[in-house]
């Protein structure tokens, strides 16, 4: 029985052979980019907060998993499209997390200003 990694490796080899025979190649570069975007999102806690970012990061992860199955099955064009969607979702998740962080910083700074104006300790 083939494991996920074995299936992916077999798929990549099949894709390479397919390329030699005139078929499309496995979107390995796009896969790397999508996975890097997801890791970047996790590093800034986009998988946790805000909830909308977590949802899009989850969608991205699901599309990457789907793409890997397509690659294993030699369906490289489908994999390419799934990875495009994954990339778009991951980038949106990262942007949402950064927006939330900036919003919290701005809110905290405004509270500090009000406290300074009122003569209260920060």
């Amino acid at each position: 029985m083939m494991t996920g990694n074995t299936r992916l490796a077999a798929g990549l080899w099949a894709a390479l052979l397919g390329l030699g025979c005139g078929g499309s190649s496995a979107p390995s570069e796009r896969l790397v980019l999508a996975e890097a975007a997801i890791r970047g999102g996790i590093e800034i806690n986009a998988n946790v907060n805000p909830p909308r970012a977590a949802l899009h990061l989850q969608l991205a992860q699901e599309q990457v998993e789907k793409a890997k199955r397509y690659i294993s099955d030699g369906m490289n064009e489908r994999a390419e499209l799934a990875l495009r969607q994954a990339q778009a979702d991951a980038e949106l998740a990262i942007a949402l997390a950064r927006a939330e962080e900036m919003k919290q910083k701005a809110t905290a700074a405004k509270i500090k200003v009000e406290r300074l104006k009122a003569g209260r300790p920060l």
Partner: protein
Amino acid sequence: MKLGSGARMSPRPSYTLWLPVLCGLAACGMSPPPRQLIDARAAYNEARLGKAAELAPAELHTAKVSLNAAEQAYLDDPESAETYTLSYVALRAAELVKVQADTKRYKAELDDAQREMDRLESDEIARTRSELIRTKHELASERQAREAAEAREHDAMQRLARSAALSVKEEPRGTVIVLPGNVLFASGQYELTSEAQHKLGMIADTLTPQARNHDIVVEGHTDSKGTPASNQLLSENRARAVMDYLIARGVPAGSITSVGIGQARPVSDNATSEGRANNRRVEIIVKPAEMR
């Protein structure tokens, strides 16, 4: 070919808005656009008409390019998987523009608040510095005034020592004026002699202005002749007599106290008559101002 149902997409499109277009397409025999494309168009327009055009023009352009690609794919093949995916990506790009515009707006608010904080803190620092300088000046003035007062008091004591022929000493407990017992009282008595009253009058004149800033203690001392108990009582009575006279001559009662020491603190040898004479004494201690 479709890759997914897109059931989790948001926001929900306004089908009413696109209904005439859909009907037109149906009339032409063209498949209606995928929901992702409809949503992408709506999201892009929302971004274009909102703050994004001002705050994130480059990102808005990127979203437009993405939407154009989806539109072209739809024209090429309305039902292709590529059309679906490009529409999906165009929708995410439009949503991304709005989020990036929000981020820039928050960043601007943060910068404004930071500048305001810096300004308020600068004002606070300037105010604190000004208060510090004022306090330093006040302390310097107070120190000068205190030093001048101390100099005046010292001069007054020296004049007193010369004019009244008294011993005036500076000790850690304060300025000590020593009055020999034989000058003040008859032997074994505690009524002040006339000479004592004369000297104490001069002392009262010197001490009265200083009593505002100093505590004054009158101590009575005896030699060792007689019993300790009788000497203790005698020293208390003599100290009180001196104190009462000083108060009568103007020294504030709240600033002065008396205490009898008895024979406990001799300054000379009680075996000789000269030593005993030295031990019979009254000391007036003017305490330093900080010991009040």
